[in-house]
Structures are given as C-alpha cells and as structure tokens.
C-alpha cells in the first residue's frame, strides 16, 4: 500500500476528470435546470394541480438525475482502449477512486444545487418581466425550504448503491443496479418482517424454512390484539434499524466494497 496517495498526483487526476467531463458538466447543468423548469411548469397547470405525485420535492429530480450520471461514472472501464488509458495513468488506484468519488458526490451535489438556483433565478426573472403570465410558480418557497441535510442523507445512500453498480456491472449499469437494489431490499424486508413475527407464534405445529430461518408456524394461530400491537412496535423498530443501516452503514460498506472491486478490475483478463 506504499505510495498510494500523493496530493499533486491527486490534483492532476482530478483535473483530468474535470477536463474530460467539461462538456458533460455543461450539458448536465443545462438539462437539470430545464428539468426543474419543466416540473415547475407542469405542476402549475390547473388540470394537473391535483396530481399529487407531480408535487414531489424538486430535489427528487436532481437525485434521480445524479444517479443516472453516477451509474456511468466508470464507463471507461468497459471499453478496452479507455481501460488501458485509465489503468496506465500514473496515479494510484486510490487516487483514481477518490477522484471519481469526489466528482460524483461534491461535484454532482454542487451541480444540482447550481441548477436549482439557476432555475429559481430564471423563474423569478420571468415572473418579474411577465407578471401575471402564470407559466411558472415561484420557486423561492421550495428553494428556501430545501432540506439540504436530508437531501445529503438520501444522496449518499443512493450514491453508494449506484456507485458500486457502476463499478460492478459492465453493461446497462443503471438498470441492473436498480433491479438488484430493489431485489435485495425486498428480500431484506421479507427477512426482517419474518424475524419480527417470530416471537408471537406460540402454538408450534408446522415446520417451515424460509431464507434458512427455521420457522415453526401454526397456520391456524389466532393473534390477539395485544400481540398485533407488539408486532407493530417491533416492526417499527425493525424499520428504524433498516433506516439506520441504509443511511449510515450501507454507504460506508458499499464504498469500501467499490474500492475493492476497482482494485480487482485491475487484474481482469483481456484488458
């Protein structure tokens, strides 16, 4: 692990990343600003004003958009010529990893914030120049109410998943990560729900094994209201645990796993 980090090399690698992506950054900024304006315009339409799903927090757009970008952040590992360029670059794998990490966290968060600000400025300018036109509603309210801490929490959780997917999958990274994540969380949910139910079954009749947990369930067992309340309480606890895992444990775990996977990529056959 010697010579893994050198600040000068790190800046050079970061400069390379930004220089390669400068056009993409401008395109992202323009399209994200446009998406913010579009959502504002759509939700302003009278016939859509009651469609609650459209009144989602504006940060959701930025979040989805950023996940799409993150999914392709290691695209250069998926073609032979680009992979050689990436691997032969005289910087360590840790520096390369950190550059990608910073670009997809600090970089993209800043970018979404700038895009949101830009959309807000455009809307306010429009409303000032054409008062009463009613095309857009003011974004100042949502802008000032923007819960940055919550956005960051969600961002980092999702980032870790899609960042890992970007390194792990070689094709259709976004779709595969999405499907894998949904599958894993569904399985986890079922697993945890079953565990939370375990203490409340008293009459043991039917042996059953689900996900390697030996369950003894009496299918005819009648649960009392008290038991159901207990189940609800335990379920809430389980949800809280899952929530904590999702927000704090999972990102760190997946980021570490991503780094290990990136190191493994160096050894891949058929560069």
């Amino acid at each position: 692990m010697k010579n893994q980090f050198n600040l000068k090399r790190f800046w050079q690698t970061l400069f390379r990343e930004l220089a390669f992506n400068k056009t993409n950054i401008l395109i992202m900024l323009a399209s994200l600003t446009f998406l913010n304006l579009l959502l504002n315009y759509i939700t302003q339409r009278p016939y859509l004003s009651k469609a609650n799903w459209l009144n989602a927090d504006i940060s959701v757009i930025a979040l989805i958009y950023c996940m799409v970008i993150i999914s392709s952040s290691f695209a250069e590992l998926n073609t032979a010529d680009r992979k050689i360029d990436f691997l032969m670059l005289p910087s360590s794998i840790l520096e390369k990893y950190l550059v990608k990490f910073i670009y997809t966290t600090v970089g993209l968060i800043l970018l979404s914030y700038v895009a949101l600000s830009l959309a807000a400025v455009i809307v306010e300018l429009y409303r000032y120049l054409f008062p009463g036109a009613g095309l857009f509603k003011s974004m100042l309210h949502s802008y000032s109410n923007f819960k940055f801490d919550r956005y960051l929490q969600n961002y980092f959780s999702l980032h870790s998943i899609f960042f890992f997917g970007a390194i792990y999958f070689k094709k259709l990274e976004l779709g595969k990560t999405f499907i894998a994540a949904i599958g894993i969380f569904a399985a986890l949910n079922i697993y945890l729900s079953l565990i939370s139910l375990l203490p409340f079954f008293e009459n043991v009749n039917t042996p059953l094994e689900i996900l390697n947990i030996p369950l003894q369930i009496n299918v005819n067992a009648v649960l009392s209201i008290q038991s159901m309340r207990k189940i609800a309480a335990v379920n809430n606890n389980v949800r809280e645990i899952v929530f904590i895992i999702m927000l704090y444990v999972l990102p760190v775990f997946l980021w570490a796993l991503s780094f290990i996977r990136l190191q493994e990529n160096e050894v891949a056959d058929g560069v």
Partner: protein
Amino acid sequence: MINISNLNFGYKKKNLLFNNLNLVLTPGNIYGLLGKNGAGKTTLLKLISGLLYPQTGVCTIDGEKTAGRDPDLLREIFFLPEISFLPPVKIKEYLEIYSPFYPRFDKKKFYEYMKKLEIKANGKITNLSYGQRKKFSIAFALAAETKLILLDEPTNGLDIPAKSVFRKLVASSISEEKLFVISTHQVRDMKHLIDPIIILDNGEVIFNRQISEIEQKLSLTLQREEPDKDEILYYENTLGGYAVLSKNNDGEDNDIDTELLFNAVVDKSEKVRALFNAEVNI
C-alpha cells in the same frame, strides 16, 4: 532492465499462453517483437506494463514488480496500444492534462515531432484521422521521455513518409537509459531500426538475437535455380528466382531480410536454433 522469470500466464487458467517464460531486456535497445497472430505479442506487452498479472512467476522493471502498479513505476512506462484512446479535447488541452504525469515530458520535443509528422498542433483531437491520431500518439509517447516505451503495431495506419519519419524519430530518441519494445507485423517498416529481434511462437520465445549476430551467422542470397534443401536453412520464391537463407560460411556481414528471417525461424525453428546454439558454443 526488464526481467521476466518463470512466468506463466493464460487467459484461461488451464490453457496457458506463456509457460515458464524467461526473458531479459536491457536498456539502450530497440527490441522488435515479432510473431504470428495470437503468438502473444500484445499479451507480453501488457504483462510488461502491468496491465495483466502473471499467474505465477514475475515481471520486474529495475527490480520492481510491474504487477505492483506503483504510480512512480507507471511514470516510467509508456504503453501505446494499437488502438489508443484519445479524449475529445484539443491537442493543447491533452498536453495540459497528461504531460504533468510524466516528469521528463519535453513539450519542445513534442511540437518538433508533431511538425516532423506533419500534424497541426492547434486542432481538436477528434478532428484527426486515424493515421493522424497515431502520429499524435507517437509524438506524445516519444516526448514523454519515459525509460520504457512499449509500442504495439505503431506503423499501422501511417502513410509511407510517416513510416520513415517514425524510424528516424525512434532512432534519435533511444539512449542508454531507454528501452523500446516494438511489437509489429510490419517488419519491413522496422528495417534498420529494431535490434535485437525477438520472435514469439505459441507463447514461447523461439528466437532472441542481435542483428549483428544474425548477419554474421546467416547469409541471404538470391539465385535463379531452386536450391538444395539440405544445404540451406530456408528459401522462398521471389520474382525471377529464389531468396535463400543459409549459414554464413565466410563470416562477412550481409543485409538480412527480416521477413525472410521471421519465416525461416517460424518454419525451421529447430534448424535455426541449432545453428545459433552451435555457433554460440564455438
């Protein structure tokens, strides 16, 4: 110095391409790496550069394992693949991005090479044709001034004048500290440039000799009549006769056709080896 010792490598674990490969490459030389398709030329370059890891055995550069991929070692290696990736930026931007990674990068030389290869240095890389991109990459590789330069089919896509310029540039770039390994099928493009010649066949180094030694021990003659197979090493039909490769009995240096030598080594491997080994023993 590159030292490959007891190296085993295969893209599939049970199907080894290199089996117990041993090779020493010393600085101050331009090695020509020749071989048929699938002989393992590019794989060997990737193993030397650290892009591939040996299953067993080691490949070291000045005593340091290439598989370690230390950034300081990577700064001393320039690997130019047959098709190299060039980002959609201006040439000057490319220099700003990549040249700081190579401590001895010489911008003056780069522009000089670009001029000699007739490439304008003020455009976008994406506007360059395939051949021009190749020229640009060669200019950059040479200007990087790394100790080890690995070139995979560097003359593919170059026009005829550029091939000549390429030979001159490489010849003028070599120094006591530098080592070039050029993998190629275009042996005629490398005439009077590559020395020693390494020939790979089925993952094995079947020939590794200096040009002076080859010219001393082999003789090339052109004759009208078909030669007696027992008295020669190898022959080929040419326009109006036969190109014959035989043992150089009078010991005088003569100009050997590398293509003929390659065919002789691959076709009559044992005969050529026996000749060289016998001569060495003397």
